[in-house]
């Protein structure tokens, strides 16, 4: 088996896929759900229901706030209790729609049967529109609205659709379970994305640590007989599933600084997104649930749950038996890029892929010591940056030098901090520099635009 990987850097954290044998199981619906209006990158959605309204599963409850925006659907049936600010996973107050659950009544027109629909519609535009109406966003974690990704700007052309099944973050297994248990749907979703992009070839990229999924998806592709679709076995290497890294690995093309994947002819969609595309297009089912890996060595019961969007974390944890005594950190997502949860009352969003429990020993950072100039951070950086240098420049608040040394290219994968023997908080500091550089770049672009408009007048 030949293995593919990206060309610069990367690290090998232990993959710890301890929940890999746990089949997907639906979580009982919580008594109350809180559905946020800001579950994606772009403008927050605008609520279109009022307090006291009765809603059904799959009904639109918030509309896009702009082109880069997404529909939000009710994940339950019941009564809207409030529309008010509430702390999200990071502890920030954002508008949530509170729904008290009554039964489980679905909107008419949603196909809730298990029948696999393999016929691909002819109209590419209709497919993209259905994806938009289904509120599909990138479920790999970035939550970028999928229909926007599928609408390339004029002049750019998609040459290949890549389905990202790398799941390179340690611990996470929800994509793996989805590939195993819903492989047919994922493959049909991939075929729909192929069609939406004009019949381009499609590569389903899966890391070598998931041999069952690789074999299963190969079988499914052969069985369903879609053309120009193949499985590529990827080397186990973090961040293999990073968008730019994956395109480099699959197509040997590097997306430039600040550019989008489409600039090199690539469209990348996660496995969970492909499933959501299948459900939205073939079954009229919008994104109302997603699979969440609940795991950690200290966690008594590993699980891969199908969770309705807006379920408070506490309900998930209670269902699985509560928080273990020695857990000190709960992470939404994987251990490399996930966010530490500040608040257990917070509700899941479309992009919530995992809840990881870590003990103090697993997650405690040792005290920082002097840089020994070993260069391990630079070797690990998949963007070819020099984290030791950016760290110093950020600390010195030299934003111009940060930009000259490409702080804006940082993808925040965490490889530098992970590999630093001196435990220097490299990424913590580089994030600050990156933030300042990006705002400077945006300010320049805005000024240039304003100047151009002034010149026109």
């Amino acid at each position: 088996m030949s293995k593919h990987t990206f060309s610069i850097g990367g690290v090998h954290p232990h993959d710890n896929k301890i929940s890999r044998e746990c089949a997907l199981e639906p979580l009982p619906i919580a008594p109350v759900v809180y559905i946020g209006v800001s579950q994606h990158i772009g403008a927050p959605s605008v609520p279109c229901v009022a307090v006291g309204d009765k809603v059904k599963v799959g009904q639109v409850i918030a509309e896009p706030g702009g082109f880069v925006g997404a529909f939000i659907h009710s994940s339950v049936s019941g009564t809207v209790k409030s529309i008010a600010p509430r702390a999200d996973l990071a502890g920030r107050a954002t508008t949530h729609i509170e729904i008290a659950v009554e039964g489980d009544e679905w909107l008419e027109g949603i196909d809730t049967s298990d029948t696999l629909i393999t016929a691909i519609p002819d109209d590419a535009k209709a497919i993209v529109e259905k994806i938009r109406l289904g509120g599909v966003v990138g479920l790999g974690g970035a939550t970028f609205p999928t229909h926007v990704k599928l609408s390339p700007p004029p002049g750019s052309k998609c040459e290949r659709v890549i389905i990202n099944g790398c799941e390179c973050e340690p611990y996470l297994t929800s994509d793996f379970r989805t590939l195993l248990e819903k492989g047919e749907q994922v493959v049909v979703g991939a075929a729909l994305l192929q069609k939406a992009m004009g019949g381009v070839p499609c590569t389903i990229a899966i890391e070598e640590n998931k041999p069952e999924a690789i074999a299963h998806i190969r079988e499914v592709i052969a069985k369903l007989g879609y053309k120009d679709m193949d499985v590529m076995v990827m080397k186990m290497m973090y961040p293999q599933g990073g968008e730019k890294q994956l395109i480099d690995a699959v197509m040997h093309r590097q997306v430039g600084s600040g550019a989008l994947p489409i600039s090199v002819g690539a469209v990348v969609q996660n496995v969970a997104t492909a499933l959501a595309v299948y459900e939205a297009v073939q079954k009229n089912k919008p994104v109302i649930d997603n699979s969440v890996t609940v795991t950690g060595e200290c966690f008594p019961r590993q699980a891969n749950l199908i969770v309705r969007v807006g379920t408070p974390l506490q309900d998930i944890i209670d269902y699985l038996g509560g928080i273990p005594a020695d857990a000190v950190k709960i992470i939404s997502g994987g251990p490399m890029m996930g966010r530490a949860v500040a608040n257990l009352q917070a509700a899941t969003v479309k992009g919530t892929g995992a809840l990881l429990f870590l003990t103090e020993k697993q997650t405690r950072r040792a005290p920082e010591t002097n840089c020994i100039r070993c260069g391990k951070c630079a070797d690990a950086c998949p963007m070819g940056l020099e984290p030791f240098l950016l760290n110093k420049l950020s600390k010195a608040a030299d934003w111009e030098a940060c930009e000259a040394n490409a702080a804006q290219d940082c993808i925040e994968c965490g490889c530098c901090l992970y590999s630093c023997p001196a435990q220097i908080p490299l990424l913590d500091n580089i994030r600050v520099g990156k933030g300042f550089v990006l705002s400077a770049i945006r300010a320049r672009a805005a000024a240039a635009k304003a100047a151009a408009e002034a010149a026109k007048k």
Partner: protein
Amino acid sequence: MSKLLVSPSPHIHSKDSTKSLMLDVVIALIPAVICSVVFYGWQELLVLGVSVASCVLLEWAITKYMLKAPSTIGDLSAVITGILLALNVPYTTPWWVIFIGAVVAIGVAKMTFGGIGQNIWNPALVGRVFLLVSFPTYMTTWNAPKGLFGADAVSGPTPLGAIQEGLMKGSTVQELTSAYDYKDLLFANLGGSAGEVCALALLAGFVYLCIRKVIKPWITLSIFATVAVTSLIFWGIHPARFTDPLFNLLTGGLILGACFMATDYVTSPMSVKGGIVFGIGIGFLTMMIRYFGSYPEGVSFAILIMNSVVPLLNMWFKQKKFGRK
């Protein structure tokens, strides 16, 4: 659990720490240490003991009483400096000379610059060169090893020193090198610093460090290649005046320097390209000093000179950034 810990990602860390990397270097040096003790006997053990103890104690005392900072001896870097200093002097060096070397290595070359990671020059080499310049008799007169299994001691200069002396007296290189069996050089050096006693032991340590991914092989290989090519050219042109490549590779602490001194993280370039240029510089300067300089062995000076240009090499040779020209 009452409180949730919240901090930025990543939430896990590799097992590497400064201490674990330094421990690997200590492990890699063990074969060379054992060989030196076996060949030179209890006197070498004393040299090693004095050197390591002085380096560690000095660093501890300086952090505690002068810098009033937390002690850094736990990272084991002072132990490495101590071992390397000991392996870089003849086993006959008096203990007080070694102590002075440790003062210069740790006190001047390392702690004055701010401790580990901050120094420009390799501390052990600065200590060694200070001793070489200050106490040339102790540092260049070599006594034939008595060893644990003891033969009689004979005193004489190091092989490179003997050749330089011989050339000045009008002998040819062929006559002079015929006195040495190269196999002896590989397994048991005929003279010089204690650490050079067994090339194979040093190379075993180097291979260990590469396998453990503590260091990358490029700097070392680039030094070897440059020394080989440079001496091949000179030797090819004038074999009576210039020593041959194999002799140059096996003598004068080249293997010790290339494997353990030039690969020091702190004082070598960050990038692979920079490392290769760094190695070429060391190899070339070594050969120039050996062939044309007044010191018979050039590795220490060559490494220290190249240490000085590391900041420039770091600036000039960067790895390619993703998606950029």
